[in-house]
């Protein structure tokens, strides 16, 4: 669009005549140091002008006192007084606040940015591609105020969440609508927090889009901006415009290639002092006083072999590096901590991609065609993904009145072994390797020499000698390695997003546009589970096939009318209709009862009749919409919109709803006289309503039906019905978000400083949620309209060029958004809603009226009347099972980013930070690792040096301090005692001695008071604030003169890093982003990770000719 205007400007300026008195030459460069072709250079107040050539050079003849105006659409205009100079070089800054910039808004309507009465963030192509992110969303970290991105671990195939202006739904989807070239696409949600439901980490639809094919992204944040999308817009809208050939003359070829490496990062800080084991007073496993477990291996009755207790508690003998101890795999090793025990379960992932794009343009149209090949690996062993992406974007003019646009985006993708969840290794005791254990030790043991799955103990095996017989191994690690190495999952998908648009300019003031589009995905999955044991011991393994097809069919028709009524007034109107149908079909078939022949991977190898499954769904929605806008003297703009929506997910008797909005913009810098240092000023105000409908088929109540087959000789098939325990509700109403917003945009100091600030206030009423009830009522949940949320916040973007010299330039953007959420009302006078109860009543996630959603509650320590914390005879604090206290809240308070570009000659350094302040998470597994004595946190008072007290344990299990070498009856003396600050049940000062091993083990154990009366989940909840070095890029553009000699028009090399380090972080032992285990906010509260976080390093090469 920008380039079309440019051509237009060029035509006009070329016609203008020149009055030559002096020649001025110069080079116009962008903030990247590269010359900009086609910049308009005009003598102010005249028609005299020129444009820059391909290298950004210009020559113009002007009077010596002339003022030159350098302008380029999308960049800030610069004025320079000639003052007799013959050479004037100018750097143009790209500008989001260009006066004449035209942007694409809702429903594909183009509007001047200055006319918008609401906030909208636009992110350009360059920002999306500089660190070679495999999808556009992970390139958005910190780049738009009010937009929060969080990626589930797992690399290129894992889902990415986008939250716009906080969370708008108590339990529903909080993901925005994604619109590509005017058409909504399939995105979807994932839940990776349910390990037993699915062990592979799933992705969502937006990650298929190739950043290299994207021209820009506009984010519609508020209700007014998104109101034309009505019931789909409660979470905002992301408008993606793909690259086209517009503005290209003749041919142009762009090539970019990247290579990057992902390494596992931010693993927990393990302690290296103590090995597995525990004192005998905890449990008698037959260990000796020093904690060793001796075994008789040669059957002579003498226990000669030194081993350790097969526990995951690490309160055993201190590492000395010399004592020879037999590990669980039967190998004797020196007793020392295993440094990379977890890292060895993952691989270094190497990813690469290449994109080549050809653009061409001429009188009757233009087109761009690109091909991309991405090869992505993940740190999960054997996980690979390859994408072939073709993108075609053409526009043809048929005569002067008709235009046909056709866009096709085709994505062919194969994924081999989608990353496997490490949930069992991290969020679970059964997978926590002791400090005397190592992932490497498992590789030779997870599979027998005959290729079968490992066998433990006395289990049946063809190779009983290989059975894993000594304690201390982690079954979950063995299972994990079997799953990632032996189980093969192959997915192949083809996705086509296509869009055909016809535009007919009927008369000058009226045009009509019609569009049909589709987003079609066909995916096939083959899953091969190898035979786990010999056939003689029973059938095992399996094979299954699945296919998934999703089709979105979309159409709209829209008439646009615009009329200048008088010199000062212009009115415009748009009216249209849009309809959409989404169909999904799933089919699967797989073996049942194992494979009949070892490792024969086919459904025909099924032992019993193969299993099969199928499901399908249809969603229909349509809407009429219209807008009316009014513009007065180009400085007052008012627009009103309305949309009437229908959807099939609502009761057909009551499925239509109307969504209005209005917005206004006032350019006071045009209307009023401003001081010199103010370049631009605009006030915005808007109001609108958007909504949200219940999920597909959730409202209707119906019986499940099925068959048991024939159950007797000569019998008939036995058919049955059951009533689902998730209850629907035919009377459900749509959620409704009512939002108003004010904003101010200003540029100062010749555009070296700009601000854009917004305040918004939204109420979201009639929240739809499956309200959990006690199953004893006859249903586990009931779909209900419950409550009102109030969201308000401030978004601020400050853009500045703090330093600019001839060779050096620093440009910085600070994005900040503060967000406040309050639960205003819940239904039926209830004052709180429970989202989750964790670990048997240990902690709860609640939304309480008057508070932000997502309060984390836990039990406090019991207090005596005298105020002292009560210690029970075990020496540990007693948790008050009858009381709950608020210990945190899951909502972040402020988020944003700090973007810097430093340019020195042809070198550019981009440094992007993103940050989050406030809000808490509960990384339970990190605490469970403390409870197992695995982390450095569990070292205090473990010995005399770290402050441990000496005590002995008598026959009644009572611990008494001592200074002697042995207890009165010769008892062993331990040195890890502590006396907690508090009182005994009778109020007297505490003198019960606790051992530090019990202190850590029990205080940080699993379970609520009924399971573990001394476990303190209040300690588990930690503030989640951080400032992260998200992207660092060093680029070098080779000199034009050199580049042109090899036939290129430009050549750039860069080195980059992603997720490099933290400047500040409040959560230990993990990357806080690892907590993202699903698309919904409550799936990001207590998980410690479904895959490790990674650091990425890479390089890229980019050239054009």
């Amino acid at each position, binding site marked *: 669009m920008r380039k079309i205007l440019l051509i237009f400007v060029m035509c006009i300026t070329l016609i203008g005549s020149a009055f030559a008195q002096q020649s001025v030459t110069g080079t116009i460069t962008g903030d990247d140091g590269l010359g900009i072709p086609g910049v308009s250079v005009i003598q102010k107040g005249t028609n005299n002008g020129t444009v820059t050539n391909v290298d950004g050079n210009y020559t113009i003849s002007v009077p010596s006192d002339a003022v030159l105006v350098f302008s380029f659409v999308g960049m800030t205009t610069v004025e320079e007084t000639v003052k007799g100079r013959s050479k004037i070089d100018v750097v143009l800054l790209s500008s989001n606040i260009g006066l004449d910039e035209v942007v694409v808004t809702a429903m594909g309507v183009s509007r001047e940015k200055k006319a918008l009465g609401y906030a909208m963030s636009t992110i350009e192509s360059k920002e999306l591609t500089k660190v070679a992110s495999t999808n556009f969303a992970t390139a958005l970290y910190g780049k738009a105020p009010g937009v929060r991105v969080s990626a589930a671990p797992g690399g290129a195939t894992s889902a990415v969440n986008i939250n716009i202006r906080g969370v708008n739904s108590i339990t529903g989807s909080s993901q925005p609508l994604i619109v590509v070239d005017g058409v909504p696409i399939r995105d979807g949600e994932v839940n990776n927090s349910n390990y037993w439901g699915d062990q592979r980490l799933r992705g969502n639809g937006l990650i298929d889009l190739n950043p290299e094919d994207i021209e820009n992204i506009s984010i519609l944040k508020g209700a007014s901006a998104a109101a034309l999308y009505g019931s789909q817009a409660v979470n905002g809208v992301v408008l993606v415009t793909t690259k086209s050939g517009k503005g290209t003359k003749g041919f142009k070829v762009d090539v970019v290639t990247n290579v990057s490496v992902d390494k596992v990062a931010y693993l927990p800080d393990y302690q290296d002092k103590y090995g597995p084991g525990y004192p005998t007073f905890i*449990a008698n496993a037959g260990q000796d006083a020093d904690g060793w477990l001796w075994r008789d291996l040669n059957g002579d009755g003498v226990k000669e072999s030194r081993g350790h207790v097969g526990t995951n508690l690490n309160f055993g003998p201190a590492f000395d590096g010399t004592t020879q101890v037999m590990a669980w795999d039967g190998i004797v090793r020196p007793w020392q901590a295993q440094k990379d025990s977890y890292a060895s379960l993952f691989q270094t992932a190497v990813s690469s991609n290449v994109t080549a794009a050809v653009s061409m343009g001429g009188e009757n149209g233009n087109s761009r065609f690109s091909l991309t090949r991405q090869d992505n690996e993940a740190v999960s062993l054997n996980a690979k993904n390859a994408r072939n992406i073709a993108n075609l974007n053409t526009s043809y003019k048929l005569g002067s009145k008709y235009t046909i646009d056709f866009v096709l985006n085709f994505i062919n993708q194969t994924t081999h072994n989608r990353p496997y969840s490490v949930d069992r290794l991290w969020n679970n005791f059964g997978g926590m390797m002791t400090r005397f254990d190592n992932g490497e030790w498992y590789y030779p043991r997870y599979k027998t020499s005959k290729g079968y799955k490992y066998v433990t103990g*006395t289990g049946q095996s063809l190779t009983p000698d290989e059975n894993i017989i000594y304690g201390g191994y982690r079954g979950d690690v063995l299972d994990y390695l079997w799953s990632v190495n032996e189980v093969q999952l192959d997915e192949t998908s083809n996705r086509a997003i296509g869009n055909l648009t016809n535009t007919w300019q009927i008369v000058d003031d009226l045009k009509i546009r019609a569009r049909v589009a589709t987003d079609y995905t066909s995916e096939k999955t083959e899953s091969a589970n190898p035979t786990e044991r010999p056939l003689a011991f029973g059938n095992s393994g399996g094979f299954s096939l699945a296919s998934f097809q999703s089709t979105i069919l979309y159409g709209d028709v829209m008439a646009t009318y615009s009329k200048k009524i008088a010199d000062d007034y212009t009115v415009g109107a748009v009216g249209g209709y849009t309809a959409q149908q989404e169909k999904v079909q799933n089919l699967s078939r797989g073996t049942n009862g194992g494979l009949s022949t070892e490792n024969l991977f086919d459904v025909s190898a099924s032992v019993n009749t193969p299993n099969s499954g199928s499901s399908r769904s249809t969603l229909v929605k349509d809407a009429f919409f219209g807008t009316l806008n009014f513009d007065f003297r180009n400085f007052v703009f008012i627009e009103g919109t309305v949309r009437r929506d229908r959807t*099939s997910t609502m009761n057909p008797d009551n499925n239509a709803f109307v969504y209005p909005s209005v917005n206004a913009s006032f350019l006071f810098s045009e209307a009023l006289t401003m001081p010199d240092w103010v370049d631009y000023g605009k006030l915005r105000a808007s109001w609108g309503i958007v909504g949200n409908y219940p999920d597909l088929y959730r409202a209707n109540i119906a019986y499940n039906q099925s068959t048991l087959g024939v*159950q007797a000789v000569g019998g008939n098939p036995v058919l049955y019905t059951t009533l689902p325990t998730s*209850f629907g509700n035919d009377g459900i109403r749509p959620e409704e978000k009512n939002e108003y917003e004010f904003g101010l945009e200003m540029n100062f100091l010749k555009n070296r400083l700009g601000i854009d600030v917004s305040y918004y206030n939204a109420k979201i009423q009639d929240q739809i949620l499956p309200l959990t009830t006690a199953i004893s009522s006859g249903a586990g949940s009931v779909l209900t309209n419950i409550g009102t949320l109030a969201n308000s916040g401030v978004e601020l973007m400050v853009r500045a060029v703090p330093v600019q010299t001839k060779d050096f330039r620093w440009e910085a953007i600070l994005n900040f958004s503060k967000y406040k959420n309050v639960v205003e009302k819940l239904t039926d006078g209830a004052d709180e809603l429970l989202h989750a109860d964790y670990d048997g009543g240990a902690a709860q996630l609640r939304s309480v009226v008057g508070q932000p959603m997502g309060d984390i509650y836990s039990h406090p320590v019991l207090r005596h009347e005298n105020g002292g914390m009560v210690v029970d005879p075990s020496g540990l604090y007693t948790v008050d099972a009858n009381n709950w206290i608020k210990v945190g809240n899951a909502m972040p308070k402020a988020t944003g980013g700090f973007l810097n570009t430093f340019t020195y000659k042809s070198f550019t350094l981009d440094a992007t930070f993103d940050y989050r302040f406030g809000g808490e998470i509960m990384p339970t597994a990190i605490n469970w690792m403390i409870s197992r004595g695995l982390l450095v946190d569990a070292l205090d008072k473990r010995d005399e040096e770290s402050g441990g007290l000496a005590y002995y344990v008598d026959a009644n299990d009572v611990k008494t301090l001592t200074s002697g070498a042995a207890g009165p009856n010769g008892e062993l003396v331990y040195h890890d005692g502590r006396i907690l600050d508090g009182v005994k049940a009778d109020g007297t000062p505490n003198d019960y001695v606790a051992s530090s091993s019990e202190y850590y083990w029990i205080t940080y154990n699993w379970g609520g008071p009924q399971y573990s009366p001394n476990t303190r989940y209040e300690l588990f909840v930690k503030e989640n604030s951080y400032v992260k070095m998200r992207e660092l890029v060093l680029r070098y553009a080779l000199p034009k003169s050199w580049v042109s000699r090899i036939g290129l028009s430009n050549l750039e090399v860069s080195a980059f890093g992603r997720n490099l380090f933290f400047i500040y972080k409040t959560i230990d032992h993990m990357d806080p982003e690892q907590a993202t285990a699903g698309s919904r906010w409550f799936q990001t509260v207590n998980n410690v990770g479904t895959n490790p976080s990674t650091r990425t390093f890479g390089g890229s090469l980019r050239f054009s000719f």
Partner: protein
Amino acid sequence: MKNIFLILLSVMLVISACTTTEFEEAYPDPSKISFTTVEKQFTGFLQANKDYVVPSYWNYFVVYRITANRYTQSTGWVNATNQYVPGGGAVNDRWGNFYDFLSQYREMQNIYEGLSDDDKADRRIYMIAATIYLYDAAQKVVDLHGDIPWSEAGMMSANGGDYTISLPKYDKSEDIYTKMLDDLKGFADEMNTITIKSGIQAGFKTQDIVNKGDLTKWRMYCNSLRLRMLTRVSDVAVFQTRYTSEVNSILGNPSSYPVVSANEENIQIKIFDLNSPINSKGFRSGLEDWGGNYAGKVMIDFMKANNDPRLPVMFQVGDSASVGEYYGLDPLATIGEQEAFILTNKLSLYNWSTISRNEFFPGVLVNASEVKFMAAEGYLNANNDESAKAAYESGITASIKNYYLYRSVSNNNQSGEVTPPTDAEISDYIAQSQVNWNNATTKEAKMVLIGMQKWVDFSVIQPLENWAEVRRLNVPTLNFWVDQADAQKQPPVRWQYPDSEKTYNTENYNAVSGQDKITNKLFWEVN
């Protein structure tokens, strides 16, 4: 050009416009139906708890392995800290399934109540059969928890989805027993005179996956359940009169109140087709995974000492043990000793071919052996020693033969052939010192004999009945490893309520929270 465009535009409009019918059609899930019948819902109800009747992975691995199978020492296991608190998964899932099952029953009631009087009369047998089956499952839940939501439970659908009035109160366990006993007595009488139209009977035969439409078996099931419930509360003062009169009436009038008295009459869900959803394919992983099939020392020693003919069919020797060399795991040994013993490969396991790998293993509801043992107790209480002895001995015989019957339907032979014992061998067993009725001189001693036989008979096949009777009779006397590291140092005597009750049914839960301790005995555990 203009015409072409108009055509194009109209085609696009036609493609994209939606009709009202499309919205109506796309509202309901195409895989579901909006209407059902008493018959279909009856089967839906029966199968809703099939995983807790027919051996399933979940029930054995998640529920029984860490609870009843250990509390009764039916299995051996390696001791570990925190082992005596029933896992949240086991408690929540079993509870959740029961109330899902109950709400299917309530829905069937709703549908039934909507019928005309004639249709109701025709389908009365469905309601009776469903209620009997419900009470069987309900008694197990009461015996786990004590007071439970009952009379008001499962009403969400009847209340039109209004959750605010659907949260149920807890009924006293004694009252639930009373209500069930009253109803079952009524059904027993009613079924003596009921007539079922042949058209209804044809459908009942298909839909009834338990007794295949056999009215006599429903009568036996009903009276056997009465016997089971009465026996369970026999020591509770307020039930004693009722116990005496009703048990005597059942035992004295076999034609009016038939009970299960031979293995052919056992009430069970038989596995007919492994490819149907009703099968025992999950039994293998459910029982065998993580050593859930280890033999316990007390049971093995008792069986060995008396040369029990069930030994070779119930258990199999360890890989390194010779034929007939049975060992169980000692629950009182240290963890290291237990692990070391397991490594010798001499530990006996529950027989793969008879039990865990027998994919045709039926879903056991009531067995003749159990009924005989209850009859023996009934006669003993009536001071009829002769009948008590006969019932006791025929209970043992039925139990022995039944284990060989399980084996006879198995599709697995990995544990090797077994030969059913001859009558003489059974008689030899009955004459063994710890089995012989005549060796027991007191009523208490006789109750020990009955209890020991029940215990072996139930083993891992009827774990909940087993745990209930072990608690009621304190037979056998079992000793457990003391868990020093946990507040709960010994096995519990009941299950606590699941978290969902505390959280979502808080008001009603609070009324019973005082008794929600795993050390709180059930009302019938008065010894």
